[in-house]
């Protein structure tokens, strides 16, 4: 295991060569919460000027099996197009070198935090409506763009977005579950029976658009949207449903700790210029919980059988499966009591 100083010095040396500049390390800290990559905040002097960067390094084992190049190239495309605020990508290095594992480096976005818990602080309460409005406006705006305008031609275009996603995540559940999952299996069968027709409009889907994956300021501005490793071309309703899943808020009635779900949906509709097809959206809401439970199942498998023993994998694979099961039960059970999830929108 490398110490922080070594990682920081190696990154400074690499960037010095990359930029052809004198690059010295001023400080480094590991950032918590990076479940799919190790994340470090690095302060540098570049030719005497202070500069902050964020290093994302492959871990020995990850919560989500994703390709680093896919994520980095998505950042490049989005940053170039401006479809969403994202950090400026600086470099992707796929050979390990001094940092032992592949990594990418982005410019630091100053003045923001991603912590979901930070939204519960008293100082943030006056800004939650503004933040929530911005969150779903940005998502709705992104849905307006045709995917072929974004420079993401490295992504596959699915013939049937819902069927494509269902096939992928069903396989994750069936291959990774350490114990039979009767609630997830019932949900998979429901999804199979209620598959919506292919959408009339395909868009870039972030794939994990939720509180915790964007940087917000103390004044309720969204400074950058992060964690694009699951980005793909698909039905824009997928991101909307995922962002509204009850798991992302301890409060039953507010999406992402910010707004009532119906308000968030209305903001998205106005920003996207689309009217949500409620039948299709019900499907995507159930799908969101199934995809989440697939990720938690996969992380449990990784924790038990993988090389790393990161506690985030065990938390995701145990109490989060429990909560997601209760959300699915509330949404699918014929006699639902809606203790853990409101009725589908």
């Amino acid at each position, binding site marked *: 295991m490398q110490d922080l100083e070594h990682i920081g010095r190696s990154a400074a040396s690499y960037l010095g060569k990359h930029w052809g500049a004198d690059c010295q390390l001023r400080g480094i800290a590991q950032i918590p919460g990076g479940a799919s990559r190790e994340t470090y905040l690095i302060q540098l002097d570049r030719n005497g000027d202070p500069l902050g960067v964020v290093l994302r390094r492959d871990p020995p084992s990850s919560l989500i099996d994703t390709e680093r190049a896919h994520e980095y190239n998505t950042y490049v495309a989005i940053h170039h197009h401006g479809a969403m605020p994202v950090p400026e990508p600086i470099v992707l290095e796929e050979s390990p070198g001094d940092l032992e594992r592949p990594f990418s480096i982005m410019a630091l976005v100053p003045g923001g935090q991603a912590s979901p818990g930070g939204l519960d602080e008293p100082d943030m309460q006056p800004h939650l409506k503004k933040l929530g409005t911005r969150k779903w406006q940005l998502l709705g705006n992104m849905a307006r763009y045709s995917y072929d305008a974004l420079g993401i031609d490295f992504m596959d275009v699915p013939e049937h977005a819902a069927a494509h996603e269902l096939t992928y995540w069903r396989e994750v559940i069936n291959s990774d579950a350490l*114990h*039979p999952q009767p609630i997830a299996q019932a949900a998979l069968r429901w999804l199979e029976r209620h598959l919506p027709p292919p959408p009339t409009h395909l868009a870039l889907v972030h794939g994990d658009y939720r509180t915790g994956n964007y940087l917000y300021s103390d004044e309720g501005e969204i400074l950058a949207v992060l964690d694009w490793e699951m980005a793909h071309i698909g039905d824009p309703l997928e991101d909307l449903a995922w962002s509204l899943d009850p798991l992302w808020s301890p409060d039953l009635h507010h999406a992402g700790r910010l707004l009532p779900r119906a308000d968030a949906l209305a903001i998205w509709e106005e920003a996207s210029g689309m009217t949500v097809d409620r039948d299709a959206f019900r499907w995507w809401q159930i799908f969101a919980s199934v995809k989440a439970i697939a990720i938690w199942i996969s992380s449990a498998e990784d924790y038990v059988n993988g090389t790393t023993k990161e506690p985030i994998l065990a938390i995701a694979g145990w109490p989060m499966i429990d909560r997601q099961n209760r959300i699915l039960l509330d949404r699918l059970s014929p*006699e639902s009591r809606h203790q853990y999830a409101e009725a589908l929108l």
Partner: protein
Amino acid sequence: MIPAPGKTLADLALRIATDLMPALNTEFTQADAGLITGLLLTMAQDYERAVDNRMQDMQEINALFAKLGADVPRHEARQTYLAKAPASYHLDPVTALHGEAFEHLIDVHAWAEEHDATLDAAIWELLRAHSERNKFDLPNM
């Protein structure tokens, strides 16, 4: 001897959260300690109940299976399962048999969705009871 492992795990979690975490000097190590605290609390809550919960699940599943006719698929395999008991009341053999029970339950549920609405509702009720029994009480969860 530790006479109350569940309580001991909870006490350890509290000790980390209140005494050790504030002394950690980086945000990353504090967050990591917070996750370990959450895991210890999860284990503390499951320690006493894990075997009993699985046995109770199987009791309810078995009672439901006992009422099913031979027209429900995998009847013979289900009868073979019903004749089994855990090799011991240690967690691993109980969990293994519980897994068998759940595999049969998944099959019966899939059949009931197409053929028997009353059975379908009964299975959802059984799953709700299972889920409530296994619920964790953790901060922000």
